[in-house]
């Protein structure tokens, strides 16, 4: 496929999404993104979806299902918020410091999760169930089950998501990091080899445990960023998520992950994550526009139907083409 054709194919999905949703909005006298504030929110949400989807896919692409993403995001940003507040008391520089601490805490939590998996050698889905319960329990114990509010309510934190600039910088940094790490380093080559053929890759001498630990570490770090962005955006962190209350965040990443997989046929998969996140963020902005007529129940149903319809298309592409030709 030629490069221009690849670019057109890669951009087709977000462009079609924008056109369809904008038309819907225009028919009702509105716009998907009506002002600068809504644009800020759009970019912030794009960053959250893109990073969550990347964190999910790092392990899922290798057949490792991880339910603990939400609990890692929650616990890492609670740690970040508490330490930051202890140092700066909500003063200047709180947001960048919290972002850094949450990132480090996320990496550590991810490594613990990965280490548990590699040590116990149980299926990753089972380990992630246990790890989720442990992290939720710790989160609850630290916060007493309460919302964390005063630690994240300060001008620095509201500034983080108050403009699109920081979110855009984070998107660029994460994207660059992911492309370099997974496409240009020895770790990345090993990762791809293990992803495609675990047995052969291990037989050729690739250190699977080391590679896996790095994957979990990166995934945890990414969720630390997501946790901080969510904390800044929501101005609270819910510390009372017990009994798998934290896993919902993972389900929001399924549709963009499949969309990214599709776009990834035409371009770098990581760019696919960004474009898929743009699609999801456009949909979210449209839901916000129609929030008075499309309630949360309807939004859930629409998201679920889109997921199924897209997968039906993706998995029956040839059949659909044959039917259309006939």
């Amino acid at each position, binding site marked *: 496929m030629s490069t221009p054709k690849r670019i057109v194919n890669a951009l087709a999905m977000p462009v079609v999404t924008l056109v369809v949703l904008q038309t819907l909005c225009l028919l009702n006298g509105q716009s998907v993104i009506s002002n600068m504030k809504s644009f800020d929110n759009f970019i912030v949400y794009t960053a959250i979806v893109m990073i969550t989807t990347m964190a999910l896919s790092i392990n899922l692409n*290798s*057949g*490792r299902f991880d339910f603990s993403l939400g609990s890692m995001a929650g616990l890492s940003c609670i740690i970040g918020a508490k330490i930051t507040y202890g140092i700066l008391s909500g003063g200047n520089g709180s947001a960048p410091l919290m972002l850094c601490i949450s990132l480090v805490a996320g990496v550590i939590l991810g490594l613990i999760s990965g280490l*548990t*998996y*590699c040590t*116990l*050698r*149980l*299926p*990753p*889905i*089972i*380990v992630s*169930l*246990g*790890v*989720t*319960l*442990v992290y*939720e*329990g*710790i*989160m*609850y*114990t*630290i916060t007493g*089950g309460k919302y964390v509010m005063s630690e994240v309510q300060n001008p620095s934190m509201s500034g983080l998501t108050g403009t699109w600039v920081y979110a855009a910088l984070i998107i660029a940094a994460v994207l660059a990091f992911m492309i370099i790490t997974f496409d240009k380093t020895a770790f990345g080559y090993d990762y791809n080899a293990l992803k495609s053929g*675990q*047995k052969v890759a*291990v037989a050729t001498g690739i250190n*699977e*445990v080391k590679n*896996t630990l790095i994957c979990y570490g990166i995934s945890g770090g990414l969720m630390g960023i997501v946790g901080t962005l969510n904390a800044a955006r929501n101005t609270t962190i819910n510390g009372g998520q*017990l*009994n*798998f209350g934290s*896993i919902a965040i993972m*389900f929001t990443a*399924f549709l963009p992950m*499949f969309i990214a997989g599709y776009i990834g046929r035409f371009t770098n998969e990581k760019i696919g994550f960004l474009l898929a996140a743009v699609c999801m963020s456009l949909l979210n902005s449209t839901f916000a526009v129609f929030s008075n007529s499309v309630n*949360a*129940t*309807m939004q*859930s*149903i629409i*998201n*679920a*139907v889109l*997921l*199924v319809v897209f*997968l*039906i298309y993706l*998995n*029956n592409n040839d059949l659909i083409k044959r039917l259309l030709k006939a």
Partner: protein
Amino acid sequence: MTDKRKTNIKQKLISLLPIAALLVLFAVFLVVVSINGYRLDMYLKIVFNEALVLAVVATGAIFIYTLGTFDISLGASTLFAATMGVMTYNKTQSLILMIVAIFAVGITASLLNSVLASVFHIPPFVTTVAMMSVLSALSAQIITSYGGALGGISIPSEVVKPFDNIGFKAMLLIAFFAICFFVFQFTKAGRRMKFVGGNPICAELTGIKASKYTILAFVMAGIGIGLGAFLTLCYTPSVTTTTASSIGMNIFIAIVFGGMPISGGARSKIYAALIGGFSYILLNDILEIVIDSSAAYGITQVISAVFFLAVVYVTSMNYRTALLPR
């Protein structure tokens, strides 16, 4: 004694560990309840009621897990079946029609998952994620619309009171378990499901249609959902948006706790859900009694999760692989 024989004995002992864990937990439970001077007869009844619906729905779900996939929508399906049961009773005042509706909805919801998965070649897990959202949303819409100021919908408690006794419930559990046991152990369908789960390619090459057994597995799970929904209504004749909310993820825990590998196949065990369900509830009740739960919900969950991982680690020794499991 030859090495092979030694290994066999070791494997036999390990496979008995889940039931040993159940017996140990049961013994500890008896001691803890007695030491605290609580009424053992009543506490046993409570444990039975708490574990019953989980064990029933999870036993049905074993068929799905045997195929090497899993269903995350079981809690939502149980909620939806119970909701439709209550709606049917309130429209018709007929207990028989209510029971028919509950089972019909349970089986249909489950079948829809399998049809989407089999006909459209979508990974069953993804269809169940979508189904979870749709069924929860639909149930919430119905419950809040018709429940109004009461916050839930209900049938008169006299209707199900005759069924809310341990003898009847135990009889239902044993009958359902016996049917599942028979299908799983003594029919061609049961054996083929294990074959498909263990090695889908080989199974296909020998002429076994995986889609047929996927549908059958989901039907069995649907019967479990229907029975679970009926038993839920027997216990509390009202349905709120959170009814059966704890079942969904606990099914994972129950099945794995019972000694079944999450990958399904030949090592699948029909009794795993029953053992695991009761073990998990006993464990939680023991911790609740021993630790002052009102001060340490988080700590209780952490201990429970660590114990879960430890038990699964030991019980999975029979199928440990050199490569990291996926």
